[in-house]
């Protein structure tokens, strides 16, 4: 399986390790859990919103094949850290995604806790047009939001970072302010447009030479630049479709190239 974050271009875990992701697509069983810092430039709010951030942490769990009892295990994981499903309204709200050009699709839910989205729960169905078998499940916990429940805080910046009095604000408030300003106001759009072209060209040229993983890095880079251009308000509705399909082309090419090199 290749990096879903590129395809879900907005969820922006752009610095995801690519060889790791590709490897999952070849193995029959795989279990992994790790913390993933993520960026979503358009979600920056200069530190002024109680729960929206342009940089945040996700706890990713990937299991292949998806276990029968995975939903139970998931609910248990919440209750272990203090979110009890008999006191909180935990809901599984339909959230499928599909990318026809890439032939990629996943079905599942976003999980709401008392109306707040705290987790993405996805069964991967297809990648580069090939049906996933076995199917893997990906659970992406939104760490800040979950902590807001367990620490009973209304504002993410009031979260305790450790037991020594350091708060989330102390570490990330300034970063949120500065990056929001960069994302929305100061990122040089001329450079970004050029950089997008460069990353795209580099990716394509590497793919011609049958070099898949470095090509994929360039694809991820292009994807992040796209997100920044989006934040700068540079992309119209019709144009968006075009950019996304360009990125998909790169992702699809990298995935296929990697598979061929495995043979």
């Amino acid at each position: 399986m290749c990096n879903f974050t590129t395809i879900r271009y907005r969820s922006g875990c752009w610095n995801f390790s690519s060889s790791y992701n590709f490897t999952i697509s070849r193995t029959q069983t795989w279990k992994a859990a790790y913390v993933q810092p993520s960026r979503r430039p358009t979600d920056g709010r200069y530190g002024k919103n109680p729960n929206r951030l342009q940089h945040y942490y996700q706890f990713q769990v990937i299991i292949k094949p998806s276990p029968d009892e995975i939903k139970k295990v998931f609910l248990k994981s919440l209750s272990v850290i203090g979110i009890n499903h008999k006191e909180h309204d935990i809901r599984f709200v339909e959230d499928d995604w599909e990318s026809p050009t890439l032939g990629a699709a996943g079905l599942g839910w976003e999980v709401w806790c008392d109306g707040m989205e705290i987790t993405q729960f996805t069964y991967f169905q297809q990648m580069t047009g090939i049906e996933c078998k076995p199917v893997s499940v990906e659970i992406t916990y939104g760490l800040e939001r979950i902590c807001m429940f367990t620490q009973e805080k209304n504002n993410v910046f009031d979260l305790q970072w450790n037991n020594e009095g350091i708060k989330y604000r102390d570490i990330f408030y300034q970063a949120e302010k500065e990056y929001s300003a960069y994302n929305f106001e100061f990122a040089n759009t001329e450079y970004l447009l050029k950089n997008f072209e460069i990353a795209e060209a580099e990716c394509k040229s590497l793919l011609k030479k049958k070099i898949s993983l470095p090509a994929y890095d360039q694809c991820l880079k292009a994807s992040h630049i796209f997100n920044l251009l989006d934040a700068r308000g540079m992309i119209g509705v019709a144009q968006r479709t075009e950019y996304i399909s360009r990125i998909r082309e790169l992702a699809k090419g990298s995935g296929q190239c990697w598979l061929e090199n495995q043979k």
Partner: protein
Amino acid sequence: MAELFIELFSEEIPARLQIDARQKIKQLVEERFNKRSIKFKSSQSFSTPKRLVFVIDGMPEKIEEKEKILKGPKLESPQVALDGFMKSNNLSKSEIYKKKIDKGDFYFAKTKAKVINVSKELELIIPEILKNYSWKKSMKWGDYDLSWGRPLKSIVVLFNSKIVNFNFYHLKSNNLIFIGDLDDAKPKKINNFNSYLKIIESQNIILNHKKRKDMILKKMDRICDNKKLIKNFNNILLEEVVNLVERPNVIIGKFDSIYLKIPQEILIITMQKHQKYFPLFDDKKKLTNLFLVVANLPDQKGYIKTGNQRVVEARLSDAKFFWEKNKTQSLIKQVSKLKNLTFFNQLGTFYEKTQRLRKLAKITSEQLYLSNEKVEIASSVCKADLVSDLVSEYPELQGIMGKYFAQEQGFDEDVCNAIKDHYLPVGIDSEVPKKKLGSAVALIDKIDTLVGFFGINEKPTSSKDPFALRRTSLGILRIIIETKLSIKLKDLINYSIVLYEEQNIKFVNNSITKEILVFLRERFKNLLKDKKIRGDIIDAADSSNIESDFLELYNKCIIINKSISNDLYKNIISSYKRASNIIDQELKIKETKIMGLPEPILFKSEEEKNLYAKINEIRKYFSSVKKQEVYADTLNKLSETKFVTDNFFDNVIVNDKNPDIKRNRLELLQMFCKTYNNFIDFSKIEGV
């Protein structure tokens, strides 16, 4: 009499999939039973996100099958046919015999009278039904081959309180149901629908979706009555919410009333679409800061209420921040920011688009007798809200936000409405702009889009239409027809091409105007079909000379369709057909061109002269009425010629010995037909 009970237990199935499965699987069961002559008194289906339940009651335990004679394939048919016959009727070789009938030699079989055990039969039928149901969207999980709406965990099938045993992929039917989400709840054994209901009701699960809906509505009504609020809830949302819960609980929430200062569309979308809440309105239909949440369990500690309030306030604080920032940003100044917003790669930016729209506004306002200034202003600023934070956050509010910004900044009310309405119609059911100014801007914006994409050859194909050009075209036609815009699209399209060229935008397509008009005509024909206009009338409209005034074409189709069986219309068509039949016959005999240009000196009889005079009178009429044409009057006028034409046909023989006179009479008839075709191509309309 026995009862069949089925429970399909799964992970949470989305509402619309659940509703479809609930209805269709029940239907499949009924169809299968009818086909197999298994009688039943009643059949019901219920669902919750995790459970699909079917109860078929009043079934026989055994059915007697009388002896039957079955006709099989012909003797000389291939072996496969015989095998198929045997398999589908469950026959053995010894039961087959041959017999000659009128149509030839055939295989036959005689089945013995037998008693069928329904339970055994169900072991075959049920898994087949489950296999045959096709989900609108389905998935796989784990390493299994089964495809279902969401992971299927267990299948309970009981007939007459006993398990109907079968395997369905990796699952085996059983009699155990699951209640809790964690290990604290062990699976419970059930015997029938009654014992099932007892258990799940003791857990406060409401299985019956109708009952759930009633419960939710009753609670919502009661809350609204107490607080003197309007009891009017979005029905689509209600249907969805009913199918998102097993243990419905309605909670009233509140947000800080400071957020009521934001445009209410933002509040409503946030609540309704993003959070699935019901916004509440006071008895003056004003939005309040109260809302209803349908939760899936009782709110013992108050977490659910405070949690939901916190979420909606966070979202609204976001919106308020942007509203205050955006509303003061001058729309006129924002227009220059559109220079950074690409419309489409080869088609320039939105700034360039609005520059083109401004120029199109000029000729449009002239044709539609609108204030040139207003159309120009509206088309210059109509896209300015696209660079606001609120529209990038709530893309569905494009136009609506523009209107609010314009109102805040004191723009003319008509201009404000045009900014909002110029995206209309957005879908088949959507309305078109209410005022002419909005229609004008909507029209030129759509023309510009259509011309641009056709210009760079990004045209829709039979299967793909990524830029929704079909919808755009249908929008153009609906605006013209529904807001009665008499406009020559051809001029507008041609000018639009010129405007692109002036901006040095390179087009690769050389026949844009022609292709767009053809494309519009196709959509127009579909639109007429939807309005139940007769096929031949649509053909007549299609082959008429009226190139690009779709309002004219439309109105003509409507009036003909309405009056086609009137005497008035019969007169027109009978005169026309008499003339055109004579011409057609002549054309069949020899290939010649009849232009419709008779020579008056060659007329011999009074009838010819009268007809000629009448035709000229009608021609004069057509050239004098033009834009003021009243179609009913025209039809009257055309029908009035009947006396003259009848006289002509009764007394004049077209086929004169003198070829010049004959020729001249044919020319006269052609002139007659051509004149009539000014209205619509009557030759395509079938006789009455």
